């Protein structure tokens, strides 16, 4: 057979370089907004925090109309919705099968996961800051409407704690997305972690003396709960609790999940 290789004819172009991480981050951010579900999920943070703020003005006793009350009220929607955004940014590649395109355009899957993590955290930080601003507006409005004194009882440091705590929750969701790679499974796992595990570990701590001392070093949510107390700066040991429990519950499973992602079959 005549199989002479004909050189491929096309206009010359610059040398082929791998896509830089900054570009992948922009692409992943775009993908989080440009689906109908993704857009409304992110919009729902603003909607839910606004509703929670209005509920505080309407239903909270006048003596508790302080900034920290508003922040406590917006905590739940943030703890629920932010991690779901992070979960779906990962799992949709498998559940919606977009990974077939994503991972053929960029076969280095760790880079894609890194880009997703960075854009999830960036969107998370922005969302929490917007939520804190909505809470502040609510505090101003609440004081104006009810005639109660305006109380700003959350310091910038305590607000920063709130941001850190919210991002930790988001990263737990992200980790579960990487580990499980299925939307519903990861969301269910997150709810079990967020709402079932604290009860079990709390019960264990109250009934077993040996666990009581260990709990701050094992229970991530217990360690993390001090970030939401608005009770001044954390001690070095409390930060160490967060670091140790974070390593156990976040870094180790994330590392295992990354191995799965790199090896798993995309079909």
């Amino acid at each position, binding site marked *: 057979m005549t199989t002479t290789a004909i050189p*491929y004819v096309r206009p010359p172009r610059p040398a*082929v370089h791998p896509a830089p991480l900054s570009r992948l981050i922009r692409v992943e951010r775009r993908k989080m907004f*440009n689906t109908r579900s993704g857009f409304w999920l992110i919009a729902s943070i603003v909607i839910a925090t606004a509703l929670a703020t209005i509920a505080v003005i309407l239903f909270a006793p006048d003596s508790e109309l302080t900034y920290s009350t508003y922040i406590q009220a917006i905590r739940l929607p943030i703890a629920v919705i932010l991690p779901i955004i992070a979960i779906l940014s990962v799992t949709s590649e498998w559940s919606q*099968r*977009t990974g077939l395109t994503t991972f053929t355009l*960029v076969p280095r899957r760790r880079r894609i996961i890194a880009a997703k993590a960075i854009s999830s955290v960036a969107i998370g930080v922005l969302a929490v800051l917007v939520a804190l601003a909505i809470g502040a507006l609510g505090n101003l409005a609440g004081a104006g409407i009810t005639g109660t004194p305006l109380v700003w009882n959350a310091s910038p440091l305590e607000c920063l704690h709130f941001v850190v705590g919210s991002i930790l929750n988001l990263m737990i969701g992200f980790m579960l997305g990487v580990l499980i790679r299925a939307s519903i499974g990861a969301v269910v796992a997150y709810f079990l972690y967020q709402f079932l595990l604290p009860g079990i570990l709390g019960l264990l701590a109250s009934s077993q003396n040996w666990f009581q001392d260990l709990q701050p070093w094992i229970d991530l949510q217990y360690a993390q709960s001090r970030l939401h107390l608005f009770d001044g700066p954390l001690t070095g040991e409390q930060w160490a609790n967060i670091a140790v429990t974070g390593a156990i519950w976040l870094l180790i499973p994330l590392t295992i999940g990354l191995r799965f992602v790199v090896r798993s079959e995309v*079909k």
Partner: protein
Amino acid sequence: MIIVERLTKKYGGFTAVDDVSFVARPGRVTGFLGPNGAGKSTTMRMMVALTAPTSGSATVLGRRFADLPNPGLEVGVLLDASAQHAGRTGREILAIAQQTLGLPVARLREMTDLVSLTDAEADRRVGNYSLGMRQRLGIATALIGDPEVLILDEPANGLDPAGIRWMRDLLRGHADRGGTVLLSSHLLNEIEVIADDIVMIGNGRIVSQGAKTDLLHAAGTVVRAEDLNALDRALAAWGLEVRPSEDGALHTDADAVLVGKVALNAGIALTELRAAHGAGLEEMFLELTAGTQREGAAA
């Protein structure tokens, strides 16, 4: 150029792809043909690093796919046009590829024009697309980086006859400019029309491969005579394997030259003598895969 060497994929005890080797050459369209479940898609996923092979290797343009610096600029891949987020518009899907590859935004317009997606269609969400529109979008995504090599899994699925014709011309043109095209299909006639080389696979193993012209030649000879019995005896006397074909002619693996000489020697007047590709590739396809296909022996 795509070189596949001894690719094998096992899932537990099941061997989905078994020792598959072939080469897809530049300037040619290579058709990857096989019944459903034969291992075409698994082989293609291994070629583009979506599935890790159990053993063997595949290289594209001399490198493993995962080692290509920016694969979208060198290899256009379409494995499943339906594998897209239903809530995303066609234009956004293209834009994601354009941005990932670092291409100018103007490329989006060129691609929607190339695959004949109107502005209104491009702004619709893919969940509302027909399969044919998804295929066009998938082709646009594969071609957006102006790649030299194309790897397409069942690209003609869901296209109307005009769309199939368009696709055929597009791929032909790509190969004629020196590009490498590998496309899979179970649509035999489509492959027969477009492919230069054919790789046929059944139950994970390569059943046959080569240039289309050679493969068609290998299908044997159909011969007809007034005295069919005498012809049958004469051919059998030469040790040729002869079987009756369905329409009252004889079919043999020997080529037409030999059959003609045998008939001349025996003094038998032939009424027809031709290469056995009247029924096209389908006959060969069914014949070659009869032992391995799921439906069992075909009639």
